[in-house]
């Protein structure tokens, strides 16, 4: 039972390992060059999956600020009275959350029962969604910053890293394919063992 729980807890990690091993095996032992490249892509995506899994947080949303958070800030900067401003700008997303919260909670929806509109007196006043299950990590609410609970959003850093990794992956794939084509032009085959055979019997 414990084992199953452990499995379920970290299923993503398990899967990433399995996929990665499939890819690795293909890279190492497939004969066909294109198969190797596909294996390589699989391998790289598995690593990306791993990274993305790191960034996941329960009950957090995508790392893009809510529309009203943004607008609230703008208003505050412009010096409007934030109470009105906030209400005025409350757009759909906010309401949807609030409304949803009155229904039964959904696993994935942001739990925003206690979303409340705070008013801060400082020169940058912002709408803040403070979660009721506020974590014990002190989050920074520096000057000029929004009061954003870090647990509300997912970790953007890993996403950034993985964007880069994907790009690198496709670049590598492209170069690999080009090399494959060149090899085919010279050997007439894309099976590695046949190429090696040709080289060995060799008219090089």
């Amino acid at each position, binding site marked *: 039972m414990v084992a199953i729980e452990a499995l379920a807890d970290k299923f993503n990690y398990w899967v990433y390992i399995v996929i990665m091993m499939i890819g*690795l095996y293909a*890279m190492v032992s497939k004969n066909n*060059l294109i198969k*190797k490249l596909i294996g*390589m892509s699989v*391998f*790289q995506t598995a*690593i990306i999956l*791993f*990274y993305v899994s*790191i960034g996941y947080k329960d009950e957090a949303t995508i790392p893009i600020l809510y529309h009203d958070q943004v607008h609230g800030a703008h208003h505050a900067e412009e010096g409007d009275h934030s109470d009105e401003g906030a209400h005025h700008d409350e757009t759909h997303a906010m309401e949807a959350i609030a409304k949803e919260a009155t229904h039964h909670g959904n696993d994935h929806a942001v739990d925003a029962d206690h979303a409340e509109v705070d008013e801060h007196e400082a020169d940058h006043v912002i709408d803040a969604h403070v979660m009721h299950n506020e974590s014990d990590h002190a989050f920074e609410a520096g000057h000029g910053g929004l009061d954003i609970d870090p647990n509300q959003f997912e970790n953007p*850093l*890993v996403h950034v*890293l993985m964007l*880069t*990794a994907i790009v*690198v992956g496709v*670049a*590598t794939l492209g*170069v*690999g394919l*080009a*090399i*494959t084509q*060149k*090899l085919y032009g*010279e*050997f007439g085959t894309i099976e590695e063992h046949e*190429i*090696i055979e040709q*080289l060995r019997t060799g008219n*090089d």
Partner: protein
Amino acid sequence: MTEQAPILILLFPFLTAIFVALLGAKVPAASWPLTIASLGASICATLTTLIQVLENGTIRYYVGGWAPPFGIELRIDGLNALVAVTVATVAFLGAIYSKDRVESETENKGPQYYALYLLLAAGLLGIVITGDAFNLYVLLEIAALTSYALLAMGNKRATLAAFKYLIMGTIGASFYLLGVGYLYIKTGSLNMVDIQEQLIANGLQDSSTVQVAFIMITVGLWVKMAFFPLHAWLPNSYAFGPTTSSSIMAPLVTKVMIYVMVRMVLTVFGPVYAFEVLDWGNIVVWLAVIAILAGSIGALAQKDLRKMLTFLIIAEVGYMVGGVWLVDETGMTGAIYHIISDAFMTLCVFLFAGIVFAKTGARDIYAVDGLFKKMPITMIGFIVGAFSLIGIPPTAGFFSKWYLIQGGINSGNWEYVIALLISSLVNAVLFFRIIEIAYFGKKPAEGHIHHHGDDHTKISEAPITQLIPLLGTAAIILLIGIFNKDLVAVIQDFLEPFNLVAGIR
């Protein structure tokens, strides 16, 4: 502008590369001067940086103005500064050599070649100066992609080898990435120094994740540097790629990877963790011993000049990996010093191989037949490189071996010392075989029939653009040999805070 020198190191080649790629389509002739100019500027920048480092200590350059854990920093201490100077210089010399060869060896793709060349240099320089673990990965991939392409421009064996390299290189880089991910999951940081601080602060010494991260990173880098059992991609690719490509890649790519390994061990994981907590130094030293012996034996078996040299690279990698894992300050000094000296040594012999190939069109070691008569200056350059690889004073190679052996004795790794000596002897055999052929000719005449003047083969001295880098390299080998004390002082200054002396193990 001097405070901006760190970024300029890499901006020069990098921006020029793109410029060359664009301009090349219209004015191919402009590519080479631009390349040379930018690499020269890059050398100036590296030297400026080095001087600054020597004066003021570690430079921390915040790219984008964001303080380290948030932004990316370029962190330059004595180690990187030295390696950066080496990389820039080697690239510069290699570029000079390329001039006459590129057109004929790459099917008129000069501009593309130079663009890739500069990008490779930029990538390697970037790897050297960065202080961010992930940024390193990106630059690693730039360097790797350019290498694949530079090699694949060669003949069909090289193309196949380039493919193998692509697969292996991707595995290596991905392992590295995975290792960084494992570190990130435990520390939440990507900045090298910050990672170490977090590792210590959170007491992650026993964490299996960190252990696996360490294994992954090390193994990944081993693949990239062609450490013995993982070396399969190297010999053919360097031996059959265009000589211009292999004369920059052979010296630089593996060495920079070793630099990265040193950096990971020292700065990211910390020597205490790498050597004390994970006590597998001995295994690695044994692996290094096997690598050295295997490389040497492999080299003995080769008839192809450049292929022989590639096996030597494998042996040299063994030297350095072993040197790092000796867990001894002198050994580490030797390994780092060897990074620098080996870069130039390898460059020297590969340039020689390139010149011989250019002149004779033959690949095997008998191509050097009688070259002492025909190309005496070239041979002088080669002899310096060869002596250095053998380890004859006062060339740089002797001193690196000096420190390595000292480290080996200090730490009691006699097997390593013996392997090193055997390898030196094998090098001696290999190079004297070549020198012999160059001196005596392929079929030595019986008795006293003397060579008078040049034979029927019309081989004369190499053109000046090929001689300058060769002799320049030879001079540098001698210089860093003679002035090794100053170099070592910089390295030891760098190593001092890591406190390797104070009896780890």
